[in-house]
């Protein structure tokens, strides 16, 4: 049996408290995970300054080279895992087995992470606006004859990671080259990526004492948040609300990402059908950047019907099938609760589940140890119905009829908006809309990210603050 120890500043720690991670479909144990206790986190984090010190002993350029080497190791090397080792293929199979994500999607996410590491230098140039890395490392330095000083807001970044989508790990990959330590609390079903990435870093020569990994329950996540002055957390709307306004916590919640059709482009909707399908379906709709709402001033019913034709027939397939498009829900009761929530919101006038015609046995597919929810398209006659604000962790999309002039006021928080319009006035309004985080003007799928741009806030701004600094010569 594979055993994941906790890592306490790089040192393996086997806990007496062990969690078994099982195959989502067969129930077979896949791995044992040592569970940290909150006291260990609190105690270790008293020494977090050492993590940054160890990283600062490595010149920034050298550290960058090590991280790029880690990219290669992560995606192609046999790396240590517990008492044994793990090939990339084993990683894909094991990750699929415990998360319910089809294997080809696990591979896609792996490649995504490799891409980010491969391009980490460009990403950092973009995020730091070409700031000399040594200025961040030393704390000050001259740039074009002007003294610049930046102070790290924390020696380590805490992360409470999810189980549902391995792609989110891309967000923490730029941290090590910034000479900030990592404190990772993996999701219960997804210990694989944090572990393998950590091992790739170590093999590439990143100091072991810069990384801690604490598997555990919610109390361990709370300990990470309470003991790191800067943290990222992933969660639902309740988590977002809980940490709203907390300057030490960057929350990544539901994306409510959308495609917005302008008056000028609504009649051309059929041209954009592939873009809509991809935006909804890729990664089984699990990402915050998946589209969950298509807003249009007209043709809503036709758009919904066309999407239903494409998405409705999709059925669960075995995880090793290259055509598998749906991820399993592995948490008991979760899929049923989602399906019941959809049922409850279908009661309002005009709200129509257009995919129902394709689901003779219902949208919920219950298996012995897991469930699936089949892709669902719901037509909403106006933004005022409750259904128009729904988002779920599977391919689910509402098609909402809404006048262009009311659209930006009605869409609510939107992580990614792909706006299909050439109307200069609407484009200007979109650029000014503060409820939109990432804006795509033109036919760009919501799931297509430009990694050189910030995601839900610039991580460099989160970890470093500019300040005044003078030094007598």
């Amino acid at each position, binding site marked *: 049996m594979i055993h994941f120890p906790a890592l306490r500043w790089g040192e393996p720690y086997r*806990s*007496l*408290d062990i969690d078994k991670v099982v195959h989502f479909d067969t129930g077979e144990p896949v791995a044992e995970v040592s*569970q940290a*206790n909150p*006291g*260990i986190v*609190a*105690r270790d984090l*008293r020494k977090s300054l050492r993590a940054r010190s160890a990283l600062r002993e490595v010149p920034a350029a050298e550290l960058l080279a090590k991280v790029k080497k880690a990219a290669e190791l992560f995606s192609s090397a046999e790396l240590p895992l517990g008492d044994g080792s793990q090939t990339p293929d084993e990683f894909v199979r094991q990750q699929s087995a415990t998360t319910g994500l089809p294997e080809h999607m696990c591979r896609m996410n792996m490649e995504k992470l490799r891409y980010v590491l491969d391009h980490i230098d460009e990403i950092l140039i973009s995020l730091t606006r070409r700031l000399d890395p040594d200025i961040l490392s030393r704390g000050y330095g001259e740039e074009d004859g002007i003294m610049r000083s930046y102070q790290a807001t924390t020696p380590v970044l805490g992360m409470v990671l999810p189980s549902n989508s391995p792609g989110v790990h891309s967000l923490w990959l730029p941290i090590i080259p910034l000479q900030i330590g990592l404190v990772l609390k993996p999701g219960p079903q997804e210990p694989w990526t944090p572990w393998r990435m950590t091992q790739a870093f170590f093999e590439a020569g990143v100091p072991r004492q810069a990384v801690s990994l604490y598997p555990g329950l919610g*109390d361990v996540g*709370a300990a990470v*948040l*309470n003991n790191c002055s800067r943290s990222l957390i992933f969660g639902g709307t309740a988590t977002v609300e*809980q*940490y709203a306004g907390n300057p030490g916590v960057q929350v990544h919640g539901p994306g409510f990402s959308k495609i917005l059709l302008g008056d000028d482009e609504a009649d051309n909707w059929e041209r954009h059908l592939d873009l809509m399908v991809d935006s909804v379906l890729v990664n089984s709709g699990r990402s915050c950047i998946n589209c969950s709402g298509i807003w249009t001033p007209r043709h809503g019913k036709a758009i919904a019907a066309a999407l239903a034709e494409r998405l409705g027939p999709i059925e669960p397939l075995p995880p090793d099938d290259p055509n598998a498009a749906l991820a399993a829900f592995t948490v008991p009761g979760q899929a049923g609760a989602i399906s019941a929530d959809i049922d409850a919101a279908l009661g309002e006038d005009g709200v129509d589940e257009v995919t129902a015609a394709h689901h003779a046995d219902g949208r919920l597919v219950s298996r012995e140890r897991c469930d699936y929810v089949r892709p669902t398209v719901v037509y909403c006659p106006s933004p005022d119905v409750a259904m128009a604000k729904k988002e779920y962790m599977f391919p689910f999309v509402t098609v909402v009829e809404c006048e262009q002039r009311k659209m930006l006021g009605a869409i609510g928080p939107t992580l990614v908006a792909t706006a299909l319009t050439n109307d200069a006035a609407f484009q200007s309004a979109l650029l000014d809309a503060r409820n939109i985080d990432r804006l795509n003007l033109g036919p760009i799928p919501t799931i297509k990210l430009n990694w050189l741009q910030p995601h839900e806030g610039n991580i460099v701004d989160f970890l470093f603050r500019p300040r005044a600094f003078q030094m007598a010569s």
Partner: protein
Amino acid sequence: MSTLATDLEGRAGAARESLDAWVREIVGWHFDPATGSPFWLQWAEKAGWDPRTEVHGFDDLHKFGHFEDEWLRGGPVRRWVPKAYADRPIFVFETGGTTGIPKSRVAIDDFRTDYELFSETLPEECFPQGANWLMLGPSGPRRLRLAVEHLAQHRGGICFCVDLDPRWVIKLIKKGWMDHLKAYQAHVIDQALTVLSAGHDIKCLFSTPKLIEALANRLEEEGSSIKETGITGIFAGGTEFTPQWNRFANEELLDGVYMTPTYGNTLMGLAASPPSGPAEGYKITYHAPQPRAVLQVVDADDAERVVGYGETGRVMLTTLTREFFVPRFLERDEGEREPPCEQYPWDGVSGVRPFSALASSTTVGVY
């Protein structure tokens, strides 16, 4: 079968006989109109049967069904006072109460008796007679303050106290006011350090796992340790203990200072645990102070069935004192049933943790 095993079996049998006799005595007391409490006398009247004639031993307590802790909410609290004790000074101890009406339990001498019995389990070299104590934990309406103070006095010492209000801690957690939580914990630890540094010759500590952690960490930050303050023995309680925490505390916090984890609440006495270290995998097994209290581990779906040794089930408590009768109360905890041991020739329970079916609605380990 070895002589040792035969001896233990014999002692377990004797313990069981004593328990049956004690049950008859206690049931006789609580359902005698001259001595029993109004609550139980009225209960028997409504039930239509006389426990004094129908209860002959511990197994017959099933006729009571299960004690419902909701009965303890609200007044008049005197309905719980046995008539025989009507003229005695009465204490009331509360449990819960962060929101709504807390559960109340009356007491006269039980807490003293329970803690005197517990005192017998403490090793003299770690908890020296005459040593002074620090009680660092929840007091207020709870039993702990008076009980720990009595323990200290019973052993010839004086008890210094630092309070912690768990109801406020739970509110802070629920509101997400983590900065306030940290500040409150720091306030509590500040007071503890002041007492420990004031030359009071404190050698014994009562505290909870979270506060032990916080105290050890703070002392270490200040270049000291629990051991260096002069503390030689820690009586730990108040919240759940896992083997992992027990190991963590022994390996990283205590620097060789003896710690004895306990399991208890307002409804029962104090269940002690035999020493447990690396050889036992740091497993903590609690044994109730039988016959005054009995812990059983029952099937979570069928509370009439006691599970086999090593099997998991819900903890069921029966309290049998002249002051308080609690038959077959299903605790909000689960654990594994453990066999009798040399020190305690009756069943125990290990791995005590929140009952999984209720765990999501319970805030635990807050202090």
